């Protein structure tokens, strides 16, 4: 008798919880096919017209160069991964910033160190499930939203085929 009551209670709680949880849609692909190269305005704003993205990068300049105006008139490379994170980097950057979208804000998820001397001519490619950072002299670094991926071999075949 006790077992039956317990089972009924569990079922009721499960149904109740399921009906209270928010609607969730799966298998969403946020990935941009190609990175955007955007120029920072004098107001420290960048605008990506195709995807309707606009943001202030003064905080990013302070974080990378300790100068909120350091990025004015500079070019930044922005790419959105399949998961929906924004990857941002540029010339002289020593990091790739991974930002997570929130309500009218982008919050840093991680700051991935990619070099000691700053990048020369970086580019970002989307190679699901990774983002690939390219630079001069054959630099090719596989990234996920947290860090550099040390051994992406197993995942690579699929991404490289896109080229």
């Amino acid at each position, binding site marked *: 008798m006790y077992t039956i009551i317990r089972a009924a209670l569990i079922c009721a709680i499960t149904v109740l919880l399921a009906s209270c949880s928010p609607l969730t849609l799966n298998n969403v692909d946020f990935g941009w*096919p*190609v990175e955007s190269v955007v120029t920072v305005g004098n107001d420290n704003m960048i605008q990506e017209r195709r995807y309707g993205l606009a943001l202030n990068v003064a905080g990013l300049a302070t974080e990378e160069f300790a100068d909120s105006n350091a990025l004015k008139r500079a070019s930044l490379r922005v790419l959105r991964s399949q998961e929906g994170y924004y990857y941002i980097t540029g010339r002289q950057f020593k990091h790739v910033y991974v930002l997570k979208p929130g309500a009218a804000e982008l919050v840093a998820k991680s700051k991935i160190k990619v070099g000691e001397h700053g990048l020369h001519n970086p580019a*970002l490619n989307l190679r699901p499930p990774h983002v690939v950072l*390219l630079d001069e002299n054959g630099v090719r670094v596989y990234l996920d939203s947290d860090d550099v991926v040390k051994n992406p071999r197993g995942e690579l075949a699929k991404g490289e085929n896109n*080229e």
Partner: protein
Amino acid sequence: MNSIRNILGLCLTFAMLTTIARAQESDYEVKSSFEERYRELKTRIHAAGIATELEVVDGDISTLEMQYITRQQFLDWALYPQSFTELIDELRLWSVVTHDKLVAFEKIGFLTARIDSLSDDRSKLLTELKSSSKSVSALNQTIRQMSANIQANERLLFALIDTIFLPYGKDLSQVGELRKGALSGKLQKAGVASRIYDIASDNVRFLKETNLRGSDYASLIDHYHQFNQKWGGLNERISEVYTTKDRAGRQGKSTRRQTGKAAKAPSPVEAVDSVLAQWQGMLTQTFWRDLANEFSREGVTVKPFSDAESFAGSIREHVQLAKANEQEASKFANDVWRDHIDKEWRDALTKETMLGMDGYTSLDVLVKELGPRRFDPMFVVYGLLAVVTVGAGWWFVRRNMRTQAPGAAA
């Protein structure tokens, strides 16, 4: 010039190869270099001056397609809302359209030169027609040349107009103001309205300065109506194009026109309409005048006429009067009507715009009743034919009967 082009080509190829080498790395560079090459080819297509230049461009479009075909899937995604295939097809379409346009320009140039040459010949022929020093046969030859020249000129001119209008389709209301402006420029450059005007006014001069025979009129009437019909199909379109041009012109000059009232010059279309009316008037006038002269030359006085209706009335009245005088009736029916009117003027008079076939036939029957009934040698031929046919039939039947008779008896 060629060496500069070769050097530029090498530089371009080198730049392209280095770009592609780098583009193999960055998706962004792949997309950008493709777009750059696309824009460059588009510019070359628009800048092409002769049709053969586009053959080289077509080759480069195929090269571009081959270079990027391995990245088609990526480019389809990256170039959204367009796709790799769409952009390549677009380049090919532009190339074809521009090629057709350039071929049309080349054709326009050729036709314009040919028309100019014919116009010069026509002026000389008109001068020859004016001089009376030539013999009648030489003048007739000149008239034939003149007539052939005018008609060749017209054919070329209407071919020229068709060539100009061809890229714009039949319905000009669907064509934007900008393209109408371009079309107007082309029409003006080729001097279309003034050329049509010149041809029509040359026809008027031709009618004024030439002594025509009755047999010349049928083709002249057809000629006028064909020209008028062609112009009818064109004037609305040309008028629409010129109206667009005038509107644009007025907007630019509105401030200058605020003072003074300049006399309004007729539009090119109105000028052509006016000279066509003159042509028709001259044709009608000379036709009925020359026809009346046929009667007076033979000493036959008929009531004056100036159109089909009054001519028919005049002939009917004269037939009624001539019935009382046998000699006059015979002269009218044979010497005038049969030998001149029916022989030389019949083709022109039976035109629908004149008496028409029915109108002419009724007059012809009426007039022929006046004359003595003549023996027609064709009746003998028909009679002989009938006799031979009946004889042959009778002989054939008889022969069959003879061959069947012995068998039947047996």
